[in-house]
C-alpha cells in the first residue's frame, strides 16, 4: 500500500472502502461500469427521451459521483475509465453521434469530479447528512455550485446534437436542473444505503413497520396528489401538491436523513414517471418546458427536506451522545464507588445516580430524594451534614464534608461528599451538583494508622518516663517525706496535750497541701502514661511548659541544668491535645538535656521562649548550649531511627514532627550561632 497522509488513512478506515489491493480496485471498477450502464438503461426505461431532451435526472452521473466521493482522487481515473465503455455502450444504443457522446461523457465526468472534489475538500464525510453543516454543504455544492458550473459545458451537448446556439441559456438551465435533481433525489439515498448497508436488518420490527407504513401512505398520497388526468389546466387544485408534505415531515422526523432522502427519491420517481408518461401535471406547453418545471419543483422541495432530515439526525445524535455520556459517567462513577447527584434550586428537586441508593443503604425501589438520604445519616453526624447542605444551598458555595450512614448491614459506612454550585447564565446559582463517595476504607486505614501512631507515641512517652524515673521518684518522695514527717510530728504533739492543737491544725493543712502535690505528680504521670484518644482543647502553652518543667525538676537539678524562661504572658491559647504537646516538650527538653552532658555544669542552661505569631498562633523556642546537631543533618533528625545518642531509638523527633503535623503546626531544628541547638515549633491559631 502506498504511503498515505495520515488524515487520508483515517478517512479510508472510516469509509471502510476496499482499496487495499488491485483486485478490489478492479472489482469496484467493474461494479461502477455495470451500475453506470444499468443506470443509463433505467433512465431510458423510465423514458428520458434523451434523443430529444435531457433526462430529468441521469442516474449514471450519480453512480460515478458516488464512486468518486467514496474513493481517493488518485484512483478516480480507474472509475472514469471503467465508466467510459458503459457510457459508449449505452449512448450508442440510442444512436448518439460520436462527438456528442464524447462531450456528454466529458461533462458527466466533470460534474462528478467537481462534486466529489469539492465535497471531499469541504470534509463532507460519513455519516452523510448527519449534521446541518454537512447537509448544507452538500446541497450547496452538489445541487447548486457544481451542476451550475458544469452546465456551461453540458449545454454544448445539445448544440452538438443540432440545437441552436441561441437557446444556450435554456440548455444550460436544463442541464443544470437535471444534474441538480439527480444530486438531490438519488445521490443522498444511495450514499445512505451504502453507508448503512446493515441498517434494515438492525431495524427493530416496529420501526420497520413504521417505515413500511410511511411508504404505503406516501404511495396513496402520491396517487391522490398526482392523480392521472389532472392538470392545472384541467382544474387541478395546486394546493394538492402539498399533500405529501406531512408524510415527508413524518419520514424526516422519524427517520432523519434516511427517511427524508428516501421520500424525496420516491416522490421524484413518481413525478418523473407521471411527467414523462402521462398527461403533464406541469402543463406549460412543450414537454421540455414541462419537465423543467417539474425539475424546479422537485429541487425546491427536496433541498429543505434534506436539510430538515439532517437537522433531526443531528439533534438525535446529540441526544444519543449526551445520554451515552451520562450513562458512561454513571457507570464509571458507580464502578469507582461514587454516586453523582444534582439539586435544582428553582424546583427543589434532587436527582442522583442509582449507586446513591447503594451508598445510603436504600432499597432499590425507594426514590433517593434528599430527605430520605439525610435520614440515613448517623445521628452524631446528622447536624453537621444537614448544616453543610443547607448552607451550601443557601450560599451556593462549594463544600466538602464527611459523615457516616447506616449501611445495609449492622455497621456504618463513611461517605464523603464534595459539591459545587452550578452557575446559570445570569450569574446566580441554579443548582448544586456533587458526588458522594464511599470513604469507609480510607477512614478505616486512617484509623488504623492513627492507632499505630498513637501506640508508638505512647511507647515513646513510657520510655521517656522510664529514663526519667529517678527524677520522677524524687518528685514523689518529696511530698511523701513532708507528709510522713508532719504526721509523725503531729503524733508527738498530740501526746503533749491541748496546747499544741493550733500547730496540729497547721500540720493537717500542710499534709493536705503536700498530698495535693503528690497527686499532681501522679496525675501528670498518668496523663503521659495512659493510652488515650487524641482530645483537642484549648491549651495554655506557658502552663504546659511549667508543668513539664515541674516533672523534670529533679532531673534538671541532678544534671545541674538551669532554666532561662522567657515566656510571653499574653500568649494566646493553643488548640491541641495537651498530652501529645507535652510529649513534644518533654522530648525536646530531654534532647536538650542530653546534648549538654559534656558541657561543664556551670554552663548548662536551657532557654525557653514563647511568642505569639503574626497569624495568631504560637511559637515555642527551646534552646540549649550543648553539642548542637551534626553538620548538614538538620533534616535527617526527623527521619525515623536517626539518632546521635548511644542508647537512642531515633523515634523521638520523628514522633514529635508527626504530632506537630497532626496539629497543623511545624517543628524545626537548627544550630545556634554560638553554641548548641534550638528547636522551634509552631502551632496555628485555633481553627473555626
Amino acid at each position, binding site marked *: 500500500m502506498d504511503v498515505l497522509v495520515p488524515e487520508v488513512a483515517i478517512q479510508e478506515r472510516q469509509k471502510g472502502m476496499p482499496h487495499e489491493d488491485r483486485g478490489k480496485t478492479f472489482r469496484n471498477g467493474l461494479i461502477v461500469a455495470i451500475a453506470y450502464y444499468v443506470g443509463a438503461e433505467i433512465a431510458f426505461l423510465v423514458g428520458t427521451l434523451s434523443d430529444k431532451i435531457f433526462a430529468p435526472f441521469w442516474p449514471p452521473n450519480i453512480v460515478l459521483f458516488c464512486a468518486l466521493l467514496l474513493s481517493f482522487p488518485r484512483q478516480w481515473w480507474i472509475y472514469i475509465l471503467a465508466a467510459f465503455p458503459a457510457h459508449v455502450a449505452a449512448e450508442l444504443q440510442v444512436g448518439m453521434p460520436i462527438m456528442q457522446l464524447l462531450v456528454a461523457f466529458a461533462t458527466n465526468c466533470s460534474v462528478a469530479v467537481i462534486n466529489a472534489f469539492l465535497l471531499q475538500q469541504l470534509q463532507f464525510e460519513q455519516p452523510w447528512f448527519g449534521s446541518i453543516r454537512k447537509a448544507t454543504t452538500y446541497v450547496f455544492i452538489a445541487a447548486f455550485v457544481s451542476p451550475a458550473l458544469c452546465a456551461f459545458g453540458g449545454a454544448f451537448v445539445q448544440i452538438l446534437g443540432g440545437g441552436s446556439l441561441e437557446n444556450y441559456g435554456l440548455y444550460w438551465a436544463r442541464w443544470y436542473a437535471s444534474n441538480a435533481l439527480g444530486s438531490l433525489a438519488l445521490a443522498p439515498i444511495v450514499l445512505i444505503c451504502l453507508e448503512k448497508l446493515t441498517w434494515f436488518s438492525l431495524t427493530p420490527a416496529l420501526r420497520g413497520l413504521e417505515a413500511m407504513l410511511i411508504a404505503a401512505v406516501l404511495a396513496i398520497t402520491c396517487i391522490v396528489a398526482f392523480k392521472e388526468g389532472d392538470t392545472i389546466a384541467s382544474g387541478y387544485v395546486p394546493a394538492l401538491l402539498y399533500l405529501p408534505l406531512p408524510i415527508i415531515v413524518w419520514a424526516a422526523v422519524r427517520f432523519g436523513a434516511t427517511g427524508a432522502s428516501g421520500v424525496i427519491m420516491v416522490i421524484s420517481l413518481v413525478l418523473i414517471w407521471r411527467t414523462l408518461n402521462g398527461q403533464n401535471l406541469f402543463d406549460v406547453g412543450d414537454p421540455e418546458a414541462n419537465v423543467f418545471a417539474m425539475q424546479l419543483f422537485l429541487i425546491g422541495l427536496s433541498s429543505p427536506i434534506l436539510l430538515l432530515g439532517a437537522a433531526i439526525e443531528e439533534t438525535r445524535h446529540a441526544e444519543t451522545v449526551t445520554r451515552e455520556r451520562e450513562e458512561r459517567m454513571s457507570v464509571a462513577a458507580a464502578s469507582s464507588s461514587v454516586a453523582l447527584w444534582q439539586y435544582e434550586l428553582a424546583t427543589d428537586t434532587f436527582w442522583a445516580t442509582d449507586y446513591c441508593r447503594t451508598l445510603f443503604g436504600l432499597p432499590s425501589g425507594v426514590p433517593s430524594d434528599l430527605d430520605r438520604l439525610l435520614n440515613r445519616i448517623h445521628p452524631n453526624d446528622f447536624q453537621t451534614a444537614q448544616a453543610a447542605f443547607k448552607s451550601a444551598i443557601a450560599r451556593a458555595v462549594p463544600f466538602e464534608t464527611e459523615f457516616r450512614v447506616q449501611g445495609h448491614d449492622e455497621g456504618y459506612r463513611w461517605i464523603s461528599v464534595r459539591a459545587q454550585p452550578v452557575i446559570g447564565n445570569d450569574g446566580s446559582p441554579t443548582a448544586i451538583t456533587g458526588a458522594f463517595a464511599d470513604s469507609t476504607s480510607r477512614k478505616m486505614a486512617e484509623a488504623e494508622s492513627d492507632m499505630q501512631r498513637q501506640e508508638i507515641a505512647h511507647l515513646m512517652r513510657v520510655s521517656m518516663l522510664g529514663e526519667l524515673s529517678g527524677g520522677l*521518684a*524524687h518528685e514523689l518522695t518529696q511530698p511523701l*517525706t513532708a507528709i*510522713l*514527717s508532719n504526721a509523725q*510530728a503531729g503524733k*508527738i*504533739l498530740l501526746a503533749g496535750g491541748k496546747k499544741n492543737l493550733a500547730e496540729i491544725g497547721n500540720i493537717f493543712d*500542710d499534709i493536705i497541701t*503536700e498530698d495535693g502535690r503528690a497527686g499532681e505528680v501522679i496525675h501528670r504521670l498518668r496523663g503521659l502514661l495512659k493510652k488515650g484518644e487524641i482530645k483537642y482543647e484549648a491549651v495554655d502553652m506557658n502552663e504546659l511548659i511549667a508543668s513539664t518543667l515541674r516533672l523534670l525538676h529533679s532531673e534538671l537539678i541532678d544534671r545541674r541544668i538551669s532554666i532561662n524562661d522567657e515566656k510571653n504572658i499574653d500568649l494566646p491559647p493553643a488548640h491541641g491535645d495537651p498530652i501529645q504537646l507535652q510529649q513534644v516538650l518533654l522530648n525536646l527538653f530531654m534532647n536538650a538535656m542530653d546534648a549538654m552532658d559534656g558541657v561543664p555544669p556551670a554552663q548548662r542552661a536551657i532557654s525557653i521562649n514563647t511568642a505569639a505569631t503574626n497569624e495568631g498562633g504560637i511559637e515555642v523556642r527551646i534552646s540549649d548550649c550543648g553539642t548542637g546537631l551534626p553538620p548538614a543533618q538538620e533534616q535527617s533528625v526527623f527521619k525515623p531511627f536517626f539518632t546521635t545518642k548511644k542508647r537512642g531509638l531515633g523515634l523521638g523527633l520523628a514522633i514529635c514532627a508527626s504530632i506537630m503535623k497532626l496539629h497543623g503546626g511545624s517543628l524545626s531544628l537548627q544550630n545556634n550561632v554560638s553554641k548548641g541547638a534550638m528547636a522551634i515549633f509552631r502551632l496555628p491559631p485555633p481553627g473555626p
Partner: protein
Amino acid sequence: MREAGFTTFLVDDDPGVLRSITRLLNAAGYKTQSFSSPREFLSSHDPTVPGCAIIDLVMSEFDGLHLQQALIDSGSERPIIFLTGNGDISTSVTAMKAGAVDFLTKPVKREALFSAVVRAANVDAASRKKRKESKSIGDRLATLTHREREVLEFVIAGRLNKQIAASLGTVEKTVKVHRGRMMAKLGVRSVADLVRLADKAGIAPAHVLSE
C-alpha cells in the same frame, strides 16, 4: 545526753520538706534552725554553737556533698546527716568518708532520724569536749617558761632530776624547783598524769643520748 543549746541546722530547698522536718524535730524538743538555701546556711554558720546539720543531698544551688566540703574547708567539724530521695551507693560512700554521721533515705522515719540526731549529738559533744580539753592544755602549756618546758620533755622521757640537771648543765636542786613549778602550772600531781597530758598535747619526749 544533749548539750545545752544543741541546735539542728536543717538545709533543704524544698520548703514543704524543710517545714515538716523542722516541725518533727521541734516536737521532739530539738532546737532547730532552717535554711532553704545552702549558701544562706554557709554564710550564717556559727561553728561554736553545738549541734548537727541535716542536709538534703539534691539541691538546686549546689548539692549536699559540696556543702559538706565547704564546711570541712572552713574548719568546722559540724556532724552532718544527709537526707536523700534516691541515694546511690557511690554518693553515700563519698559522704560517709568525708565524715557524715548518717545517710538517710526519704521519706525518713522519725526513729531513724532521731537516732541519727542523737548520734550526731554525741559526736558533736565528744568533739567539742576534746577540743575544749586540748584548748585548756594548750593554754596551760603556754604559761611554761622555756626551762620548765625543757624539764617537761625530760621528765616524760623518764629522766631523773639528777640526769636532767646534768643534761641542762645545772644542779639537781634547781631542776627540782622547775619541775615543781611546771607540775603546778599544768595542774598535774603525778608523772603519769603529766605523761597523759603531754600525749594529748602531742609533746614529744626529749631525745636523750645514752650514756
